[in-house]
Every structure is written in C-alpha cells, then in structure tokens.
C-alpha cells in the first residue's frame, strides 16, 4: 500500500514541476502560434544559471531564482527580437526549423562554455532534505518547494492574463493579431512579452529543478518532449490546461510504481519480470501519440 501512496504523491509533485516547465511553451504558442523547439534548451539555460549563480556566490540555490528569471526574460526577448521576429514573415515550416536551429545553437553554446560533463548541486538549504509524512510517503524538500512555486507561478500567470490590461492585450493578440493592431494594441511588444514571460517561467523551473536533477547541455530534449506532451494534452495555448495535464503526465510517469503496487499486493509473479522501470518515459510518448490521435486539440484547447 505504501508504494501506492508514495507513487501518487510523487507523481503529483513531479506533475506540478512538469506543468511549470510546460507553462512557457503554452504561453508562447497561445500568443503566437509558434512551437518553440528550443524550449528544453531554455530550461537548460535556467538550470545552468541556477547552478552557476549558487556556486559562484556561495548563496543558496533558491536565491538564484530571480537571477534565472531575469536571464530567462532577457533571453526570451533577445531570441524574439533578434531572430523569431524575422521568421514570422516566412512560412510555418521556416518557424519550425528556425526554433529547431535555435535549439541546436543554444545546446552547442552550452557545450562550448560548460563542457558535456554532468553537473549537480550538492549543497543548499533544501538539497538532500526530506520529510517522512507516514504511510511510506517521503517528500523531498526540493520537489515540494518546486511544486509550491509551480502553483504560485500558474496563479500569477493566470491573474496576469485574466485580470490585467496587459493580459487582455495578450489574449487579443492571440485571438486576432490584425484586429488587435487596429485597436491600438502594440502586438509586436505583446509577442516580445510572451517570449519574455515564457522564457522567465521556464528558466525559473530550470533553476528549481537543478536542486534535484543534474544538468548537461543535452538535458533539454527530454524536457522538450515532456513539455510537448503536457501542452498537447492540456491543449495548445491553455494555461489551466497545462497545469492539469502536468499532473496527468506526472502520474503517467509513475506507472511503474503502480505496477509494483499491483504486483506486491496481489503477489503476481509474472508482473515482477516485466521491466516496467526501463520504459518509464515510454508511457509519456505513448500518451502523446494517443492524445494526438483522439483529440488533437487536447483537454482545454481553445485555439483553432
């Protein structure tokens, strides 16, 4: 029974983290209809920013969050103003290949500057701490903090979009760019803002994740794939959708845990021989495939 609770809790926590990772992707898509292949690389930049800031200043990695947010915001705006803006004039395929190229550039710059070695944080206020809350559930402090921050970020972004004038302008740009421009909304700046916010949320996620995951220049790809699944499931462009889909994907990642639970509770011999854990990420891609087949717009998708 313990492993069931532990798996559910772990799935929910990881789900919130993944939702935060996917938030930026869905914002950018929502506003501009651009699929950012370099999203995982933004996360990687956030991870390195968190790691290096903490190591260079000797501060706790949590204090690196504002730095990571600033770097992410600047990176998002820089990418938009220096590159993406020009792609918008081209066909859809140019935008796809363009962000793909951005991914390669960022990854290789990271390789150049940081080398391909794994790096991890080993010290920090939360690093290595965990709480035993009973029933076999052990909460790791870093994941808990990340989950809490994920909820806060979602709340902030939701408020920004639904309760502020800037949010209305963003939504208007998303719905009808030309119409928005006629109404006097500076759509160019809105696009830039979407990239800035998108970049900042994902680098914050990165700076938090580096508290419990190690970073290499290649770490982005797995997160890009997971973020795509989350966004596809939640619906491209939907902020609440990304949150709930994150939870679902987190629980999907725990399928091996549920499998163990069934095997140990009902003592089913053959189940122990199935290498579920070796295919832990496979289920995410299976889910992605199924979603695309059944409901290409996802759970909360609102854009045509």
């Amino acid at each position: 029974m313990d492993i069931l609770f532990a798996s559910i809790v772990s799935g929910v926590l990881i789900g919130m983290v993944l939702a935060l990772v996917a938030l930026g992707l869905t914002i950018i898509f929502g506003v501009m209809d651009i699929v950012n292949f370099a999203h995982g690389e933004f996360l990687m930049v956030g991870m390195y920013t968190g790691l290096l800031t903490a190591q260079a200043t000797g501060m706790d990695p949590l204090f690196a969050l504002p730095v990571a947010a600033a770097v992410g915001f600047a990176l998002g705006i820089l990418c938009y103003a220096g590159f993406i803006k020009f792609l918008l004039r081209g066909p859809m395929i140019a935008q796809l290949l363009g962000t793909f190229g951005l991914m390669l550039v960022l990854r290789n710059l990271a390789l150049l500057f940081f080398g391909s070695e794994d790096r991890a944080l080993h010290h920090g206020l939360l690093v290595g701490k965990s709480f035993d809350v009973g029933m076999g559930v052990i909460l790791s402090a870093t994941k808990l903090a990340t989950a809490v921050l994920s909820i806060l970020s979602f709340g902030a972004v939701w408020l920004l979009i639904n309760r502020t004038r800037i949010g209305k302008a963003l939504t208007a740009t998303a719905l009808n760019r030309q119409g928005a421009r006629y109404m006097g909304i500076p759509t160019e700046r809105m696009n830039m803002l979407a990239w800035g916010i998108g970049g900042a949320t994902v680098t914050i996620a990165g700076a938090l994740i580096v508290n419990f995951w190690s970073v290499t220049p290649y770490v982005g790809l797995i997160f890009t794939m997971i973020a795509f699944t989350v966004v596809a499931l939640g619906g491209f462009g939907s902020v609440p959708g990304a949150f709930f889909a994150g939870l679902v994907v987190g629980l999907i990642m725990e399928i091996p845990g549920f499998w163990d639970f069934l095997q140990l509770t009902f003592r089913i011999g053959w189940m122990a021989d199935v290498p579920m854990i070796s295919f832990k990420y496979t289920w995410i891609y299976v889910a992605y495939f199924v979603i695309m087949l059944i409901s290409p717009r996802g759970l909360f998708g609102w854009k045509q």
Partner: protein
Amino acid sequence: MKDPQKSLRRLSVAVLIVALLLPGALFAAETIKIGVLFPLTGGAASAGRELRAGAELAADIANNVMPDIKMAMARNAGIKSLGGAKITLIFKDHEGNPTLGADLAKKLILDDKVHGLMGAYHSAVTKAVSGVAEQYGVPLINDSSTSPDLTRQGYKWFWRATPHDNYFTKDLFEFLKGMTEGKVKGLAAVPKKDIMNLAAACEKTEWGSAVAELIEKFAKEYRFDVKRSILYGAKATDLSSEVRSLIAVKPDAMLFASYGSDSILMMKTLKDQRAQPKILWGQNAGFEVPEFVNTLGDTTIGVLTRTVFMPKVSQVKPVAAKVNALYKAKTGNDLSGASARAFTGLQVWVHVLEKAGSLKPADIQKAANSIEIAGEELVVPWQGIKFATTGEDIGQNILGSGLIGQYQKGPSGKIDLEIVYPFALATSNMIYPFPKF
C-alpha cells in the same frame, strides 16, 4: 624579371615544408603509436580523466629510465627490442557512445595509422571498437571493460587484462557466503536469513545488463533471493521511481552497477527516500571514482565496492606504493581501480611490444598470445597476466582477481577504501549493518 620578394616567399614556404616533413621522416621509425579510446567527456568523464592519467603515467615510465621503480618497463627508455622506440599515446574521446567509439577507432587506424589500440572503459563501446579492430586486424588490448561477452566473441585481435564480471560477481557471493560463515574480519557469523533478500539496479547498456544477469545467476547458485532487479538509463536525471521500486521489496542488500554521475544520483536518492539496506554494494565504476567520495562525503561510509585496486594495496606491494606516489604527484588523487587498470593495460602493451620486437600486427598478435607477466611487475594484486588462447574466454587474462573494499573513515578523518575481501587480505573490521542514511 622575377619578383625577388615572390621567390623569397616561395623559398621560405619550401623550406618550411621540408622542415615540417623532416623530423617525421627521420623519427618515424622510432615512435610507436597507440590509439587510446576513453570517455573524456560525458557522464563518466571523471573516470575518463583517471584512465587517461593512468595510461600516461605508464607511458612515461616506459619511455624513460626510472631505476627506483622495480618494473621491467622502467629499466629501459622506450622499447628495447625496437631500438628504444618511444610510445606515443593518441587519445580520443568517445563520450560513452559506441557508434562514436567505432568511428574514432576507424579514424585512428586509417588516418593516424596507429600500431595498436587500447580502451574503451564502457563495455558497449569496447564491443563496437573490438569489432573494428577485428575487421582491420589491429591489436586491441582492453584494460577495464568487464562485460564477460567481450572475450566470448571469438576475436583474434582482442585481449583483456582485467578480470571480468563473472569473477567479480562470484566474489560478491563468496563474500556474502563468507559473512554467513563468520569469515569476515571483525564480524560474527550473520544468519543467512538476515541477508537473504537482494535487490539490484544496474544501468541498461552492455555492462549493467550483463551484471544484472550474473547477479541472478549466482544468486541461484548460492541460494540467495533476488527480489527485484531493475535496469535503468545511466543518463537518467531522476531515479526516485527506481529507488522506490527497490525499497518496496524491503531488500537486505542493495546491489548496483552504475557508471558515473548516476552512482552519485542513486546515493542521493537512496538517502532522500531513506532506504535502509543492511548491505550496499557497488560494482566499481561510479562507486570508486574520486568524485564519489568527494561529493557524497560521510554518506559513503559503509558502502562496499568491488575493485581491483585501492591505496591500501600499497601496504603489501612496494611497487604499487611507488607508482601510486607518482600518480598522486601527477593528479592529486590515489590510484583507483580505473587508473590502476589503465596503467596495467598500457604496461601490457609495453611487454607485448618488447616481446614482439616488431610492429607487424601478426608479430604483435603472436606475442600477446604467448605473453606471461609476473605478478611482481604489476601494481594490481594479481598473480600476473597470461591470456587464454583456448576455451570459453579467448584473450582473457586468466591470472587476474578482484577485491571488495568498504569506505571507512580513518583516524585522520579521511574516507578511504579498506579491504574486506579476500578475507585473508582484510585491512579493517567490516562495518555491518550499513549505517542509516
């Protein structure tokens, strides 16, 4: 009339070309090129640095006269039977990637025209490289890859100095059996039911999956119960579901085969999830690189790892102490199972070349098949080196053996490996059960 400046320029270019070619032409016969493939970047980069330093040190000793080291290769400068030819190592970084390893091996053979190869640490890479070596008929001496399958391919150009995992995993079960019989230093006999249940987590490439199979095989033979055996990706960034799966079966002993950064992540996750095994054993690699202790500190106390070398060996082998001192001066670290084997691998190359007295592949092959190196020559505590030419393991060194060490804190506060197996060599009382995280 010709432009004098132009002809001057032409002349200087010609001189430059001749100057560049000349040393090559003059000394070409006097260098022996060995292509060495190691993971110098990527997850196992810290092991790669160790391996590289070990091989370089052996080449230094072979290329220079060092009378205070009692090794045959320290007596001469270069290879005597080849007129004092010096050894040059050409390092290539395969990043733990088998495809890249095979490509680099081809490059070394075709472009660099190496006389022989050494490497490649990761068994999966070694397998790919050994295929290339076989195809081109270039000798490959392996120093530290332990998947048993490597010497079971029937290859004629592959020799392996290190014992393989069949030996090491058997050692583990001999050790567990010894525990139940009270043979372990400082420990009364442990009832078998206390250490009966095992759980294993091995990385899922060639090496780890071979280890997982061997653990199952020997557990059956020695009547232990493997409750859970999982294979995980060494590049995984999160191992919490893996660890939960291990903990769920409440194992007495947890067994691991991990490469580099994954071993550290595994330990951190075990600590996070408050695992409580009585025995925690690692199949060297990630469990014995200096980073393991440097990063995890006191968490490592009580962890067991199989290896072929630990600094304590120096106490019984003077030649190991000498080499270890040189290695420490060079890198700041003691020799480890990885660096000691890279050192030994290159030493085997030196002996083989000395015996062959020629750089023809066929002569090198003949020399490797008939070589016998005495145990006194080696830094590792083996009986010696002699390669099998018949039987199940072609090209396997049949005189190697393994050790099991345990991380313990010495009186100086430094954490070091102490020998706990073989029982006769034990340097310290065993810590049992494994301290709680």
